[in-house]
């Protein structure tokens, strides 16, 4: 019985994730079409909504090409690793209070580690293909991912300083009064730039720059292993948007509904309406709306900015963003200690 419950819980997390991966691809194409005054895909299904499924089906039925000069095992293992570790991050996401698969006390560390291991998949895939475009693409991608991961982890450090716990749900619940966007606005901007670069999105998609490297580290990959890269890229976009909304927008908490409750003093009454509004104030729909808005911003950024050069990319990371975050890492503990507002970590007392 408990096994069946475990399976249902796992499927309830992973199926919406895969469905939204499919619809993020189609929404990217539709939104970019609208921004460029085109129609976009509109043939498959109503308004082209089933285009992503048609693409996936087509790619799954394509011939797989295993190049003779490649290391075949690593060639197939790289995309698999990327997909597995891009999807494993959904393990620690809280959808509502008490609604999570794993309540790990080091949940944020788990997310960081899993997104870091996905880099190895790209490195393996690019190196094992034994093609110069794939090799150069994987080199660039690895350098970019590890550089921007530094920024992500140091911003995370400051979030943890203000919330006092590595547990994801504690981080969300500690934003009940005010979401961390307000005290950490500059860091949110840095984190958002870092997360765009971490997911290899335009304008930082140097790893798969079509005009110079044919398709980057996945030049030689075809059929289902290409689908793996595709799924992993969009799954990590959604995951990092969820991470953004958890860290800076209060995750599943709705600040607006909370302020309505406190303004109208609704919390004391006990009718059905008030119970309903208190359920809505911390429910999965808030997380979903915040995540979708952030995904839209990702697509908007892609449609707006031209691609930058690789040396500019690395310079922006190491010479602009990293000094800013390091300055904050030095400043913020001093401010917090000076004002004596250190959060108490209960598990240490």
């Amino acid at each position: 019985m408990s096994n069946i419950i475990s399976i249902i819980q796992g499927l309830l997390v992973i199926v919406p994730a895969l469905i939204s991966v499919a619809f993020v691809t189609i929404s990217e194409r539709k939104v970019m079409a609208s921004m460029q005054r085109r129609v976009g895909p509109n043939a498959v299904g109503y308004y082209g909504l089933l285009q992503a499924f048609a693409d996936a089906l087509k790619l799954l039925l394509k011939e797989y090409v295993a190049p003779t000069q490649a290391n075949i095992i690593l060639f197939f293992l790289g995309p698999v690793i990327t997909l597995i570790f891009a999807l494993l991050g959904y393990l620690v996401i809280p959808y509502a209070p008490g609604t999570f698969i794993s309540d790990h006390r080091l949940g944020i560390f788990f997310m960081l580690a899993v997104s870091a291991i996905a880099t190895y998949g790209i490195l393996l895939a690019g190196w094992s293909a034994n093609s110069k475009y794939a090799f150069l693409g994987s080199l660039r991608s690895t350098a970019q991912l590890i550089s921007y991961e530094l920024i992500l982890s140091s911003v995370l450090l400051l979030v943890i300083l203000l919330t006092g716990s590595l547990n994801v749900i504690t981080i969300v619940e500690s934003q009940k009064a005010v979401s961390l966007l307000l005290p950490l606005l500059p860091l949110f901007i840095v984190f958002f730039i870092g997360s765009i670069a971490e997911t290899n999105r335009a304008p930082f998609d140097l790893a798969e720059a079509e005009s110079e490297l044919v398709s980057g580290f996945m030049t030689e990959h075809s059929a289902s292993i290409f689908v793996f890269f595709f799924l992993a890229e969009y799954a990590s976009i959604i995951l990092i948007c969820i991470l953004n909304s958890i860290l800076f927008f209060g995750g599943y908490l709705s600040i607006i509904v909370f302020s309505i409750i406190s303004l109208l003093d609704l919390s004391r009454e006990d009718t059905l309406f008030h119970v309903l509004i208190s359920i809505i104030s911390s429910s999965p729909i808030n997380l979903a709306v915040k995540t979708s808005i952030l995904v839209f911003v990702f697509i908007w950024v892609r449609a707006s900015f031209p691609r930058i050069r690789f040396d500019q990319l690395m310079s922006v990371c190491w010479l602009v963003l990293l000094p800013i975050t390091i300055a904050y890492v030095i400043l913020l503990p001093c401010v917090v200690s000076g004002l004596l507002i250190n959060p108490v970590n209960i598990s240490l007392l």
Partner: protein
Amino acid sequence: MGVPFEALLPFGIIIGSFTVGGAGLWAVRKWDNEGKMPRWNKDKWDRQMMERDLRITGTKRGQSSNHEAPKGFELSNPWKIEKRIF
């Protein structure tokens, strides 16, 4: 051209699927946990207390106000008392 509503349809589906999945997970976990929400960020003390409640009442989240400890609770550990060989 107005607002291209077609481009917003996939976002609606994303929001819908995440909401349905989250609500389903919420329902399953609540049902699995005897109608209460699961506790989060449990430390060692919490786990020990939950295990003690399990031994006293027989259910995961049950609590008892009975001042007499049930049978088998004479020693504060869950293992059976082994007989001494010599």
